[in-house]
């Protein structure tokens, strides 16, 4: 996170709020993150933690009711407040997104070839024939057999896993520099999820596209991401190298989540260490740490909101607690 590092995408103090009957709904608060060339950054959190809002804000898609503040720099260029035409030129061309539900991301009335070709014809000014040729190449890249024949199919003629691979191919049509993945495997069966993760891994190995991978699945993230940001109630609460973060989480929330997961690679526990309570209402966020009401290590200092700060090396955490990871883990058992 050093200032000297040249980021492909550099987000600072990004906040998104929506007007609500009980005052503004703070969907995203003061999020900082950097995405470097070729890297895969994971973002994990529960519903309402702001992970999808983050992706929408990056694409300038939060809608007219939203109040978006802070800074989003793509190769040094400020995107927040940029002209709509400029954003439209970047979207799908330099920054592309894969959505959670492939069936709603695809137009049911169009053959998948036309849908794949659309972006390339628009952004790269390819002819229809050239764009369809490129579409077939990309279907091959996402490991769909007989790609030329598949171009003539409609979305309903494909299985769920294949549809998701089509949307991945679509996102890659214009060779974007940044790929945004919004829970791309959540709606899929486990064996199909494994296939899609494998496709994403091989694409990243081949193209080196920088990836922001949003998910609520620690296991899926471990297959692709090298760094991870944990979000809670609209804020980034922990950030670091994924291996270190899993092995030695420093935020009580991350620690609790990891301990609450039933796992196949560990003995069956007598009881899962569940985090009590539920995430806060975004319209009525507490002044201090939003996790404090559920935290076993809550302390008077938590009435004041902790800033994200460096603890060890590149590992950042937004918590007043100074305990080592092992002691934080013990607090949950």
């Amino acid at each position: 996170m050093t200032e000297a590092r040249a980021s492909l995408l550099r987000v600072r103090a990004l906040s998104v709020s929506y007007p609500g009957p009980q005052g503004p709904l703070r969907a995203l608060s003061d999020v900082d993150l950097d995405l470097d060339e070729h890297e895969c950054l994971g973002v994990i959190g529960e519903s309402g933690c702001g992970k999808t809002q983050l992706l929408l804000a990056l694409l300038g898609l939060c809608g007219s009711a939203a109040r978006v503040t802070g800074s989003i720099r793509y190769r040094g260029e400020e995107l927040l407040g940029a002209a709509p035409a400029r954003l439209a030129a970047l979207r799908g061309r330099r920054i592309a997104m894969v959505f959670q539900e492939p069936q709603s991301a695809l137009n049911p009335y169009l053959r998948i070839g036309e849908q794949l070709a659309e972006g390339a014809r628009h952004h790269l000014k390819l002819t229809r024939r050239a764009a369809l040729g490129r579409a077939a190449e990309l279907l091959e890249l996402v490991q769909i057999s007989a790609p030329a024949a598949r171009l003539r199919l409609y979305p309903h003629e494909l299985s769920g896993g294949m549809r998701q691979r089509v949307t991945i191919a679509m996102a890659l049509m214009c060779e974007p520099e940044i790929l945004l993945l919004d829970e791309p495997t959540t709606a899929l069966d486990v064996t199909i999820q494994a296939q899609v993760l494998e496709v994403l891994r091989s694409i990243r190995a081949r193209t080196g596209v920088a990836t922001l991978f949003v998910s609520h699945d620690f296991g899926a993230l471990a297959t692709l991401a090298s760094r991870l940001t944990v979000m809670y109630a609209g804020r980034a609460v922990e950030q670091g190298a994924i291996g270190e973060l899993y092995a030695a989480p420093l935020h009580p929330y991350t620690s609790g989540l990891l301990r609450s997961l039933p796992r196949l690679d560990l003995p069956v526990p007598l009881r899962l260490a569940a985090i009590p309570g539920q995430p806060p209402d975004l319209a009525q966020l507490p002044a201090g740490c939003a996790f404090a009401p559920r935290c076993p290590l809550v302390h008077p200092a938590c009435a004041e909101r902790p800033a994200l700060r460096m603890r060890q090396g590149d590992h950042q955490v937004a918590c007043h607690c100074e305990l080592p990871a092992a002691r934080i883990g013990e607090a949950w058992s």
Partner: protein
Amino acid sequence: MTLAGTDTLLEVSELAVRYRLGTHLLGAHSFRAVAGVSFTVQRGESLGLVGESGSGKSSIARALLRLIPATGSVRYRGQDLLQVEGEALRAIRERLQIIFQDPLGALDPRMCVGELVAEPLREFRPELGGEARRGQVTAMLARVGLGSELLQRFPHQLSGGQAQRVGIARALMLGPELLICDEPVAALDMSIKAQVANLLRDMREEFGLSLLFIAHDLATVRYLCERVLVLYLGRVMEIAGREALFSAPQHPYTRALLAANPSPDPTGLRRPMTLQVEAPATLDAPSGCVFRSRCPLAVARCASEVPRLRTVGASLVACHRAGE
């Protein structure tokens, strides 16, 4: 699996569910969502039903509750659930309850929590006075971890976890023997899943419940169930005790399911194993073994002969090649 001892609560044999897709010149067009599934649930036991979409697991749950027509037999305390009618069916429904995947969808949006939890009592214990009923409702809400301040709330004012707790309270209100859980934690948030899994475990102990726990998440099944049945395209692939199934799976499909599960391993090195081919649509399941089109071990015999369940190691497994 026909050892119907005194402790067998539920004995399902040759259960089949067929959905009609419409009629054409040559007659009715239909497909089998569940084909010849047999299993038992012992008293106090928790049996996991595992499979991916299209495996027939929800169809089995719905068939057991007579929500959809099925053939075969489902013996519950000596009575065939698929044959009983009227009062006898009503009496069985009291003892057999279900909780659903979508907790909000399962609650009537026009009823408040108090009414929702009282409804089974109004229906089955009409002799109870209002006072006694309210007492039981408040006590049950407290047992599932909900305060009485929620009594007047409507479903849309609840979080997913709270709504699922209301569903569990409703299901437990009449003191059932068997609770069918159809993906009860799948739709819940990460930090809420463990709460509800723990609650089910506690309730099971407190009420001496048997569970038929349907899920696609193997880790949750391993946490809650002593025995596991693996389904694929409506057929049983393997039945085994927890230890055997997770440490020595015999069926290639069970192995594939286990291997596909990504683990939050800090080394980040364990890549999930993948099956090369996608599942065929349920409508055109292959001949012989339904898994053969994706099976790395398939041989000619798998296309011609449907494998029967047989004992291999500590499992009952439907595979010609298991144990080789």
